[in-house]
């Protein structure tokens, strides 16, 4: 597992925000809400909060400067994935007729941006004080040269092996996200999956520490 770093409250204007690093992957997440639904047409169920998510990669996030148009297929898909994962843990029924906006921006990409975004979003949601069932954490795992690998970086990811991204509710032991873009025999898949879950739990521990520290700091500020 690469080195983790989490920081809360990096965007003062937002209700909650966090910076999360996994090795050289660095993402920033900002959460606005719960607030009034801006576009009533989007509201599907007035008894639950509307969760929206936008994922973007900064133009400078990868080595070669390519224009990353907003709304390309990849970011739309990842936005959707993050939204679904977060929705599963947010207690939306407590906040009827409101909306929660999650913005995640990749500052530096080195593999595993999806997982890093989910982890950053969790921190930011917690910072915003949005009620959640549990902490959602995510981690990827792969399988290269017949060894399972945890938390793939860009080189490992682009080597062509399978990439399994898992998101779990850490305490409840429930899977909220599972993605894989290759074929893998069932028994190796189970190994890889287990490894990824272990990684998720380690991240959950770390996130809990960060949150605890943050709470202590807030406590001190209040006196």
């Amino acid at each position, binding site marked *: 597992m690469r080195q983790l770093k989490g920081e809360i409250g990096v965007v003062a204007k937002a209700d909650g925000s966090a910076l999360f690093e996994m090795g050289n992957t660095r993402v920033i997440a900002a959460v606005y809400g719960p607030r009034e639904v801006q576009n009533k047409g989007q509201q599907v169920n007035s008894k639950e909060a509307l969760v929206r998510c936008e994922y973007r990669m900064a133009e400078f996030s990868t*080595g070669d400067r390519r224009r990353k148009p907003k709304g390309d297929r990849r970011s739309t898909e990842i936005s959707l994935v993050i939204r679904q994962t977060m929705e599963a843990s947010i207690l939306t029924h407590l906040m009827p007729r409101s909306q929660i906006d999650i913005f995640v921006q990749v500052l530096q990409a080195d593999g595993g941006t999806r997982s890093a975004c989910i982890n950053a979003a969790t921190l930011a949601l917690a910072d915003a004080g949005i009620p959640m069932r549990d902490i959602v954490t995510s981690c990827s795992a792969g399988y290269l040269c017949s060894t399972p690998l945890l938390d793939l970086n860009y080189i490992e990811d682009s080597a062509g092996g399978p990439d399994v991204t898992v998101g779990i509710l850490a305490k409840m032991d429930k899977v909220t996200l599972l993605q894989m873009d*290759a074929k893998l025999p069932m028994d190796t898949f189970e190994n890889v999956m287990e490894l990824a879950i272990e990684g998720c739990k380690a991240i959950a521990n770390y996130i809990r520490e960060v949150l605890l520290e943050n709470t202590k700091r807030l406590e001190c500020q209040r006196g």
Partner: protein
Amino acid sequence: MLQSKTFVKKTKAGRVQKVVREHYLRDDIPCGAASCSACAAVEHPLAADAAAILVVDTNVVLHQIDLLENPAIEDVVLLSVVLDEVKNKNLSVFNRIKALCSNKARRFFVFTNEHHRDTYIKEMVGESPNDRNDRAIRVATRWYQSHLGDNIKVLLITNDRDNKRKAIEEGINAETVESYVRSLAQPGLLDLVAVSTSGDVTMEDAEDLRPSKRKVIYSEHKPMSEITSGLRCGIYHQGKLRVNRYNPFEAYVGSESIGDEIVIHGRSNMNRAFDGDIVAVELLPQDQWHESKSFIVDDDEDYAEEDVHLAPNSADDAPRNTNHTQSTVASSAAAVVSSHPVGRVVGIIKRNWNSYCGSLEPMPMPAGSGGIAHALFVSKDRRIPKIRIQTRQLGNLLDKRIIVAVDLWDVLSRYPSGHYVRTIGDIGDKDTETEVVLIENDINTRPFSTQVLACLPPLPWTLSPEDLANRNRQDLRHVRVFSVDPPGCRDIDDALHCTPLPNGNFEVGVHIADVTNFVHPGTPLDEEATQRGTSVYLVGQRIDMLPKPLTEDVCSLRADVERLAFSVVWEMTPHADIISTRYTKSVIKSCAAMSYVEAQARMDDSRLVDPLTVDLRNLNSLAKIMRHRRCERGALTLASAEVKFEIDSETHDPLDIGIYQIREANQMIEEFMLAANISVAEKILKHFPLCSLLRRHPSPTKEMLEPLLRTTSSVGLNLDVSSSKALAESLDNAKNDDPYFNKLIRILATRCMTQAVYFCSGDLTFSEYYHYGLAASLYTHFTSPIRRYADVIVHRLLAAALDIAKLPPLFQDGPQLTGIADNLNYRHRNAQMASRASVELHTLIYFRTRPTDTEARIVKIKANGFIVFVPKFGIEGPIYLTPKGDKGVDWVVDEVHQRVTKPGTSVSYAVLQTVMIHMEVVEPQPHRPKLQLTLI
């Protein structure tokens, strides 16, 4: 501890990119020394009682790999920084050093200094990457010394003057390769030390530098930057240099930018390029494009002019323009402007230097030159120029076949310099020569390792009850199965049965040895077989792909024993229409293992009516129909002159030589094997459209068929080559009163064909799967898993398609499967070349004591002679019309009619004409016997 590694890289598209990677440092990397108690490691390759632990630098690995491979050099630490540099600079050396490191018998250890907390260093400001790496090597050496304490000496081996000085300043023991090898006091080893390039510390440097005495022979290669810009603006052309097999002074460069082959005449124009090098070529002005007459250059002529005997430093005479072709062309007034562009090499982009087999040119022993002698090495491969080597054991090497590696070739010397690698054996000795053939074709003859042998089932193997209880395995022991093979065949991988059914149809089964039941994917046995790819059949010798107990006993479908098989069973009508196909694993018990002759005799003997013979006859009639149908579809019947030797059982010398006879029984077996292969190909492709291993045979191009058409049109025969069917028909019609004519045309046609190749079905489109020769849209190899690895793969695919076994993970990795297919193609080609070379070798031995007069056919006309083919022995060779030295101008070649005539006389020779020749082995140079053909 985390460090980040930043470097700048150029992408394939030519853009420059900055890459940032994480770099983790650890403190638990073992040092690999057995005497070290601090490191917890599983393996200790470095011996506790080593005299010294050697740390080598990059250039030592790159240049002295032959020395490192010698078992005298042990206890070597390879730093990861060295390995990385080697990998970037020379992949083949990298593979060799990697093999050394993974070889358990050798005491080599890879130390990942770049990831060790104490040996990782950061690049300093203003330090070049090279200096940084040198420093890293020194730091690691020092670490080793302090880590292991003073009882073991750690020695840095470097040839770099600067590095050595700095190391000694820092208190590290450092030595050059030469001085270290000298200290080992093994004179033979010094020969292995490669000639060092300038700038390094050498002992010989001082005496060699006599600039007044040395002349520039070749033009300098252009610097790389100039070549790249020249290539871009189209002045230079890039391509692989291929030297003419019959004339080493002529080479071709296939250039994509021109779309044609560039011809290069003469060594000076080739400018030190070797066969297989990637070179940059500059075109010569058009008035220098001469039509090169196709000459057969005999190697003797080359030697006759050569009068260089080697005292030290005398090998670099003035450039000797033995450019045969050019001088002749110049003399003949009718210098036609060539259709091919002519060029010269200006730079070498990638070297293809290897080690070569050959012998030293005979020379007198130099008197008292301090033991060191310079000698010229002559490669067996004629495309390779002579190589200058230094040796201290000249007396021992003169009559031996040796291997030599090339080190450098500078502008001042006519020949490249190299160093001795190892001795194979006496020249002319059959075993030595056979080994040379094997080495030249990169065939692994090493005995199977213990790890491989450990994968074998316990012997003696018998059918176990579990095999019988297996629901996927059908019990076919009651069926009358038999096999037909060449006489003396021990590895029987196919058997047949043919049972009449009550409805008048036949049940025909092809049973193939179930090799995959014993060779499991991922085991050392499997890996070894993947590497070997195929068994190699030489005259009187077989080099197995699988260990002998498997090939000759456990898998071999011998008579009267129960064996496991993989069966394809068809129901066929008496008209050979396939009604149904069934694939199953099975248990069989063969009732007879016949030879082709035996089977043929049984079928022909009308008195025999036993069930076995009836089966044979049924099969034969079915096969005839199938064969006919296949030919209707356009399958080609090609011919080759396969030679059979009769070998003396004691001396293993050939006693008799003759053409291998093909009988109806051979064709019968072949037909069913083809059918089984096609059926299996269909089945596996249906289940695994992306990862099946198939075999295709591309159609020959127009250019390939042109020599055939020119020959046939000169004798008034028109071949239709528009499709395989048309070709097959016109070959059938190619008849005249000469009984051998048809066969000869077929042999010539066979030579124009492309090679059939294995491929992975995901790599090509369906239309490209076509097998031209068999006129089959799908084909694969299923029927010889004992001797071909492709069949093993196909067995696994078929088993997975039948849900008997799981598909090994390999098949999900497309590039790897393609890699395996490429390796199989390479191994097959090499195996073929080796068996051909082995036949050639035995022919030579046979005719050594038996000069013969025989009939031969002319197959190709050249300016100074022609190439003849001897049908009786399957030999091909040149016949010279003009005596050597006399440049043949008194014979006139008629290209259109493929005829060579002597002006003023009625003497002429045309292609396909029959001539009487005399065959005899002559030895123009000691130890270089060759078969000479002369006209009588």
